[in-house]
């Protein structure tokens, strides 16, 4: 029984990290239709920003979260403004462009700070562990869970209860009609992309104490985040949450069963079959052609 609860708690912890990484990707993909292959590099930038703030400015992780969000969001804004906005009618080419941008970011970081692994300290206040249902678990993981849910809530409010969110939803429905109502689609897109990038940066900063930081750390995250978005369904934030925790529990269980190749193969094949038979994702009710 204890083991089962432990498995579930581990799964929740993995799921919350997945949700953190996938949330930004889901916003960008769902609203702009851009497959952002540079997403993993935004995660990596966030992790390096945490390291830089800590090593050179002596800021703790929690204190530097807001500046990290702003820094990575600025990167995102610049990339949207000067690269992606030129590719409005060529969705396939955005894959290529963001991939190229990702390579540049990765290589630039490698040239500037080297490719050796870096480590970020846990915030001292969250370094101990606490009891959840009688299972000892590190406070930091509980903190991550709470933060990921909070960020999801904030994003939901932003999309559904603010003017910017309403404008964005109008553009998703019909860009030209929205524009004729005076909505500046370019500006909203740039802000959306910046927000998504900022979220990825936050995700990178938040996972940095748990894993080592390296220039190519983003590659794994972008694949995982994609699976979450594909499984959850485009344009469905709630679906993203559900699929993040489903995948979290699954990978927890698979790690328990221990055969990496079989696990990966099964997950990839499942994704392939899912795309073929339900491209709109598991949790989307409405389909718009």
């Amino acid at each position: 029984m204890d083991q089962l609860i432990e498995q579930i708690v581990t799964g929740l912890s993995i799921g919350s990290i997945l949700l953190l990484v996938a949330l930004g990707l889901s916003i960008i993909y769902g609203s702009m239709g851009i497959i952002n292959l540079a997403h993993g590099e935004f995660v990596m930038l966030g992790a390096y920003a945490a390291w830089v703030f800590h090593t050179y400015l002596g800021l703790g992780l929690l204190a530097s979260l807001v500046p990290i969000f702003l820094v990575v969001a600025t990167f995102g804004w610049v990339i949207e403004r000067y690269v992606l906005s030129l590719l409005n009618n060529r969705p396939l080419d955005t894959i290529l462009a963001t991939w190229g941008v990702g390579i540049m970011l990765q290589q630039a970081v490698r040239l500037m700070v080297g490719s050796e692994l870096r480590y970020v300290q846990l915030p001292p206040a969250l370094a101990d562990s606490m009891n959840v249902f009688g299972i000892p678990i590190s406070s930091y993981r509980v903190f991550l869970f709470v933060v990921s849910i909070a960020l999801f809530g904030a994003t939901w409010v932003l999309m559904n209860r603010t003017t910017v969110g309403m404008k964005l939803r109008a553009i998703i429905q019909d860009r030209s009609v929205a524009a004729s109502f005076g909505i500046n689609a370019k500006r909203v897109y740039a802000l959306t992309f910046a927000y998504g990038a900022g979220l990825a940066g936050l995700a990178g900063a938040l996972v940095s104490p748990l894993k080592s930081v390296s220039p190519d750390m983003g590659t794994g995250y972008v694949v995982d985040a994609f699976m979450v978005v594909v499984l959850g369904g485009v344009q469905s934030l709630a679906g993203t949450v559900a699929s993040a925790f489903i995948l979290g529990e699954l990978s927890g269980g698979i790690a328990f069963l221990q055969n990496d190749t079989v696990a990966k193969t099964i997950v990839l094949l499942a994704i392939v079959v899912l795309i073929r038979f339900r491209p709109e994702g598991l949790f989307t009710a409405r389909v718009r052609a």
Partner: protein
Amino acid sequence: MPSNASNSSGLQRLIAQLAPLLIVSALVFALPVLLNNDFLLNKVARYLVLGILTISLGLSWGFGGILNLGQAMSFGLGSYAMAMALKLKTVPVHTGASGLPDFMVWNNVQHLPWFWEPFRSLSFAIAAGLIVPALVAAALGWFMFRGRVTGVYVSIITLATMVVINLVIIDQQSYTGGFNGITDLAQLELFGVAFDAYGRATYYLVAGCVLLSLLVAFAFTKSRAGLIVQAIRDHESRVRYFGYDVALYQIFVFALSAAIAGLAGMLYTVVMEFASPTFLGVQLSLSVVVWCAVGGRQSLVGAFLGAVLVAGMQGALSESAAFLETWTLVMGALFVLVVLFLPKGLAGLAQSTWRWVAQRRQAAGGAVARGVSQTEGST
């Protein structure tokens, strides 16, 4: 008379379109005369093989609109088919009964597995190197295109499928050589000619296959099926409303592209003298997309040259690590710029420059003619 005139201009256009293809092939064949260095020739042959692979992607991506991120899968399958046959031809040193490959002996495999048996025949292996990739692609294409999967989803499915096959090959070490691949191969021998990786014969074999693939791909793009495939790329539902079976044409171009990639894979094994799981890795597969985009995805010769130039430059710079790191950065920037401003790649740039020059010349010629007629009129 008008029909005759249009016919001859059509022939002229065909010749004009074939010209770059033939010129490039002639250069490829002439290179050994200028470059009297077997080591360098082997390197060039390697880039030429990658060029063939890129032609195959150009066929499905540039002409069919199918961005296959798993193009290296077909390449790797072809490469393994050739390697399996050449492995069985080696003189066994540490092998067990009936010439069992050495890595199988290390993994305590007692008998040659059934799917290795037919590879004792070289002609079977060569046929398999073409047909297996084509069949796998046709099956995958049937799965995707019958379900009307398009765009980004095709890319994700092809990439995921390639990764699965890659994982299986690495995992099944006792049958595939696993992470190390298949090494220590015999030389390819065809019609009494031995193809040493560093010999002239191999170079000319590769050059011949370059010409062959360019011609086959070119003929396809000019055929009726090729035109329909391009129409599907531009407007899929319109072609469907005309009553064409869209999926069938997509499956065909997908399989043809895979067969050419399989040919490239087989040649790669001959040139490199081994087969490895990296031949169907994500890295190579994405590089092919870059080469194709830089060279020009809608031009077969462009795609070929894009691969040879970019891969060749990368190879030349990879001697120094610092250079290589900067190069990767430059490469990323170059790629982004090409995607943004040259969607038709260098070939598109060459074409528009050519057109511009021709127009200028025509305009200048017209002005001269007008000047002549004016002076004639005044006298």
